[in-house]
């Protein structure tokens, strides 16, 4: 196994890109990352995406993006793991380089959601759940999170407003991120009074659907200096699965795949959660932020919201999360999200996070969740040069 580093990053703003299609968004991110790494060629391209077939009528995405990015001829495939597609694609790129089979590899996550709004998009997203035993009953992605959140509140005696800190922190951080979809701060009053989507999930518990693409370039750490002075080393990479459907979980209030992947990652890195300087977690819904903090060892079972109540998740807190806005406010272009998290972690570790900069950030963790906890990918990154 070879040590692997990120040598280039690129992203498009997250939002409604009415004038740019799937292929153009992916190209924008890939081209930016290649410029950032000063490379003109690569050995392979891994494309993370969930919904191109359902929304854009476009399968065979690996070849399409390679072709349009001027990389015709290279190895290229799409990797799909619902909302965890991009981190899963990144992990394939990591495996390619670590194994010694590939030297310079591109991972891009891209999603084009605004080509289809409303009922069909909702049906496409529901494809992350069990078609025969969840979706057929009219379940939506929001509803699955609502079922988990309602039971969580019941079992741990937590109020909906206790989740407010997650959304407030995300919006406050996004205000300093030019690529974020929502750059407006919100108040606790906004959170408490917002409209209900599926009780108890309100509009401000939920992340927005959006278009976007983010990309990174990987190479062996020993070659990284040829390309950049600020390479970011991948200290751990782990992907774990759980039951596809929520109803099959031994405990629907515990993200077993988050525990499994984060524990594997800590072991690989030889560290524990107390060593992590910031955590880009998967706050698609506020309940997912709480569950992710618990299963990854930052809070005890049922205490995830305590970190939000105590301000420990803010940039000055013990474990800053969603430092550039998270899914909640940067936006959640589903199959691209995992690479936005990784690009943002790289920005923090390079010292390029502007007004979101976490002081002395040396170790960052990202966690990308597919479905309602069915696939969870955890990565740990560190600065190579001090």
């Amino acid at each position, binding site marked *: 196994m070879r040590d692997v580093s990120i040598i280039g990053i690129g992203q498009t703003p997250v939002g409604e890109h009415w004038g740019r299609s799937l292929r153009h968004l992916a190209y924008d991110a890939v081209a930016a990352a290649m410029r950032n790494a000063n490379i003109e060629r690569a050995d392979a391209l891994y494309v993370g995406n969930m919904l191109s077939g359902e929304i854009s009528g476009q399968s065979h995405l690996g070849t399409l993006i390679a072709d349009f990015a001027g990389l015709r001829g290279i190895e290229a495939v799409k990797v799909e793991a619902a909302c965890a597609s991009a981190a899963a694609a990144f992990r394939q790129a990591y495996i390619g380089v670590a194994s010694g089979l590939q030297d310079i590899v591109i991972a891009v996550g891209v999603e084009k959601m605004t080509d289809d709004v409303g*009922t069909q998009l909702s049906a496409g997203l529901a494809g992350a759940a069990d078609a025969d035993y969840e979706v057929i*009953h009219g379940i939506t992605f929001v509803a699955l999170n609502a079922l988990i959140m309602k039971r969580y509140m019941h079992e741990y005696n937590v109020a909906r407003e206790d989740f407010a800190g997650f959304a407030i922190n995300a919006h406050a951080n996004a205000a300093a991120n030019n690529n974020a979809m929502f750059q407006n701060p919100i108040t606790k009053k906004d959170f408490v009074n917002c409209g209900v989507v599926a009780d108890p999930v309100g509009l401000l518990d939920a992340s927005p659907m959006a278009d976007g693409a983010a990309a990174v370039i990987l190479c062996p750490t020993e070659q990284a200096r040829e390309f950049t002075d600020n390479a970011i080393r991948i200290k751990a990479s782990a992907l774990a699965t759980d039951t596809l459907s929520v109803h099959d979980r031994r405990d629907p209030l515990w993200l077993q795949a988050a525990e499994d992947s984060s524990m594997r990652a800590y072991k690989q890195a030889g560290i524990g959660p107390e060593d992590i300087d910031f955590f880009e977690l998967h706050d698609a819904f506020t309940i997912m932020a709480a569950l992710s903090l618990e299963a990854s060892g930052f809070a005890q079972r049922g205490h995830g919201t305590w970190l939000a109540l105590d301000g420990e998740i803010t940039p000055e807190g013990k474990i800053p999360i969603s430092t550039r806005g998270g899914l909640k406010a940067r936006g959640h272009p589903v199959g691209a999200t995992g690479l936005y998290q990784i690009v943002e972690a790289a920005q923090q570790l390079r010292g390029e996070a502007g007004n979101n900069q976490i002081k002395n950030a040396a170790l960052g963790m990202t966690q990308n969740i597919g479905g309602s906890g069915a696939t969870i990918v955890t990565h740990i990154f560190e600065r190579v040069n001090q």
Partner: protein
Amino acid sequence: MTTEIARHWRLNSQRYQLVGEVCPKCGVKMFPPRDVCMECADDTRQPDFQFSGRGEVYSFTTVHNAPEGYQESAPYTVALVKLEEGPLITAQLTDVVNSEVEIGMPVEMVTRKLRAQGEEGVIIYGYKFRPRLAVAG
């Protein structure tokens, strides 16, 4: 359309009768049925198991923005129901006012229309759960 019919027809005994499986090795009762036991990974043929259809509400929510094919019944309540034999199951609640549902409420299975696909499409029927009726004294 024909393959769509087969896709639903093959699940008839689950959708209409709540037939799951019991693992011959560890005894765990499973719904839906699987080829491999979800607890002990035993892969010998698992005999059918007929669930009673009785359970209680584990969690619930109301869907307002329904996906395609479900709009005519929106808003509707979906729930995780804890069956008395053990498993959780995802289903809609029916014959009940949303505001009267609460966690722990006893429910029982009934057969209802799950989804319609326009004027000519297949109508899919299956299980929903309603409040358990009090047994007459």
